[in-house]
């Protein structure tokens, strides 16, 4: 079973000057699980994409970033894989939810398509969600209530011996 070991909640103004802060803050928070440099950089890129979407497209004044760190229980590691226990490392990872309170996405399915952009005149690649999907283990995009968008992402870190 996954146990949540730490959480943060961070609300920022939807300004592009906060992007670097947002991705660095989440990366610093995740650093306590001792992920690899590549895992940290994947995380930073995905967070940056999600926050960029909020700032460029949502018309929301603020962006809410929630993150939780988890690891699996010792019992599970012992009972489920008894033969591998000597080499088995704890699994751990991060779950992130990035919420805006703006206009929302009319067609989420369409928005998730590679190269789809609502602002083709602004030199936009339309690859934000594709990058998030590729750099994280899971991506879920839903409507927020009463309006806005929630982007949920998870990533498991490979070596969690220190967690």
């Amino acid at each position, binding site marked *: 079973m996954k146990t949540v070991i730490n959480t943060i909640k961070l609300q920022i103004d939807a300004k592009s000057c906060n*992007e670097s802060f947002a991705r660095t803050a989440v990366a610093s928070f995740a650093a306590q699980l001792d992920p690899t440099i590549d895992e940290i950089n994947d995380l930073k890129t995905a967070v940056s994409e999600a926050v960029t979407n909020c*700032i460029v497209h949502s018309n929301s004044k603020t962006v809410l970033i929630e993150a939780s760190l988890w690891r699996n229980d010792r019992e599970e590691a012992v009972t489920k894989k008894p033969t591998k226990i000597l080499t088995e490392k704890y699994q751990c990872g991060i779950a992130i939810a990035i919420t805006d309170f703006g206009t929302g996405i009319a067609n989420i399915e369409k928005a998730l398509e590679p190269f789809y952009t609502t602002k083709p005149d*602004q*030199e936009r690649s339309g690859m934000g969600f594709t990058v998030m999907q*590729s750099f994280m283990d899971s991506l879920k995009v839903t409507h927020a209530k009463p309006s806005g968008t929630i982007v949920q992402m998870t990533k498991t870190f490979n070596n969690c011996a220190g967690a």
Partner: protein
Amino acid sequence: MQVKTRAHKNTLFISLDGELDEFTAEYTRINLDQAMIQTRAAQIVIDLANLRFMDSTGIGVLIGRYKKMKDKNIPIYISNPSTQAERIFKMTGLYSIMPKVQGGVS
């Protein structure tokens, strides 16, 4: 973000030093255009060795510059991308219009 340029023989080398995201995109765009429009070089190499961060906003910036230089028949090449930048370039097919080359500005 700093956009540094250096001409060597028939090549214009441009180094992007810093982080390329929504916040720095406009500045980067303007400075790249300034460097590229003046150039008499036959080719341009954009060196990313000192680019500490880039997300898909960077793809928009690069493709925009490609379109401008295509009209002048000046090819653009990419050198020294980070692991993450390289993955974004591969998934967007950027290398088919801006091939990767060895070497950089220094």
